């Protein structure tokens, strides 16, 4: 604990969690410095199967969007075709790897602990989509499609949202094309839509579809992605 007469950074206790703030504390009202605010509110993710139950503004109006051919966005909420990307994907880290794996998939002792790209779904979603534990699945968005081994687990339960049962898909994002272990890159699926303050793309919640089996190879891959996109239009 800092003494009572401590000043500036010396007055910040070691256990204050908001290290980005001058006083180490969380602010509910942020008078300056934010692109959005000053009060916290709820927006749906940029790609979400749902509308915003609070008000008509669905997603953050200040988010940075890039409407370019290589960055198509999935239809969302009530838009036609949203049902083709019905599941909510979230990407996350595993303890064994570091970010996109460039520094850990080259290390034997780490690679052997998580040696393959996998994808976590609930037993309910597995039954609904015909996915088999240990088998392959193709996960797709309007940008790309990747393949992963199926880990069917109760840890990723479906959520009841606005009266609709909504399935989640868990995707570690540590794989790529090189290293001791290679596999689908989850970030290939996500869109480039950035948070207005820190300019981080939205990879913790976006919409995808899933089907059993390995992904198409070569030129068949963009065709496969585009066919679904066309159907959604």
């Amino acid at each position, binding site marked *: 604990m800092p003494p009572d007469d401590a000043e500036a950074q010396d007055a910040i206790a070691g256990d204050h969690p908001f290290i980005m703030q001058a006083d180490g504390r969380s602010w509910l009202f942020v008078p300056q410095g934010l692109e959005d605010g000053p009060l916290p509110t709820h927006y749906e993710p940029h790609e979400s199967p749902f509308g915003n139950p609070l008000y008509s503004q669905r997603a953050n109006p200040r988010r940075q969007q890039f409407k370019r051919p290589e960055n198509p966005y999935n239809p969302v909420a009530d838009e036609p075709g949203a049902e083709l990307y019905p599941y909510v994907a979230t990407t996350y880290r*595993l*303890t*064994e790897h570091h970010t996109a794996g460039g520094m850990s998939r080259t290390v*034997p*002792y*780490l*690679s*052997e*602990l*998580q*040696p*393959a790209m*996998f994808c976590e779904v609930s037993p309910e979603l597995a039954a609904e989509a015909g996915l088999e*534990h*240990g088998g392959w699945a193709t996960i797709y968005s309007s940008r790309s499609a990747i393949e992963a*081994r*199926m*880990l069917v*687990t*109760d*840890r990723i339960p479906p959520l009841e949202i606005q009266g609709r049962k909504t399935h989640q898909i868990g995707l570690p994002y540590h794989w790529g094309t090189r290293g*001791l*272990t290679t596999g689908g890159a989850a970030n290939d699926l996500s869109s480039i839509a950035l948070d207005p303050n820190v300019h981080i793309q939205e990879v913790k919640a976006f919409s995808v579809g899933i089907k059993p089996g390995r992904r198409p190879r070569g030129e068949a891959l963009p065709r496969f992605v585009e066919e679904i996109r066309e159907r959604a239009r």
Partner: protein
Amino acid sequence: MSALDSYGAEAQERVGFFTDTSVCIGCKACEVACKEWNLVPEDGLVWTGESYDNTSELGANSWRHVAFVEQTEPEVDALRWLMSSDVCKHCTHAACLDVCPTGALFRTEYSTVVVQEDVCNGCGYCVPACPFGVLDKRHLPRKDPPALPLLTKKEDGRVWKCTLCYDRLKGGHEPACAKACPTDSIQFGPLDELRERADKRLEKLQAENWNGARLYGRDPDDGVGGFGAFFLLLDEPEVYGLPPDPVVTTRDLPEMWRTAAIAAGAVVAGVVAAFVGGSR
């Protein structure tokens, strides 16, 4: 005379591990630290689909193994994710050490059980003798060319297991896995002290109604005389792939030698009996 007495003045206090699985977070730092320190080779990039566990079992190339058990408890409908870092138990009465025909396995001055790799000839007897399936033969290509090509198999061929970081102990350091453990799930120390600590921890968990908390291998009266590396588990041992009531089979050896002696006598008697009807 116990093995420890033979060390005379060099004998040390018995040390071991208390692995408290109730605070294990499944980070596998113990596995990596062990491999780094002991130069244990990577042994296969095999994805199992068994929760987050791709190590699967202890063996020649895995001296720490973190088990991941996913449980749904029907009565509360909550999910429980048990994690537990398994290791060689360094038994008080160790079957591997007893059956080793070369003396490669020995009891150190710290009362731990270690394989001398320059003595092991790869007979493999300790592998099925261990009631926990800890030891295994290393099947990996050997670097140096064999001296006797006809007799030599192209692999390491020896048996490897946890040494409780014998070299680190000698230097006054704790084993690599315990050093790396961020939650103190793996605790290293004098065994008596660890047992006391474990008793207190169990008492606390039981008072907090942690259903299923129990100590495994703490009891010096069990089938292997107590573990040098014991555990606090949150479910039955077999759920973690551990035997519920391990025994050192050499416990029955005197009786087995008697049986063998009688059988050997019976073999001679059988031959003699075959001549009863005449010598032709």
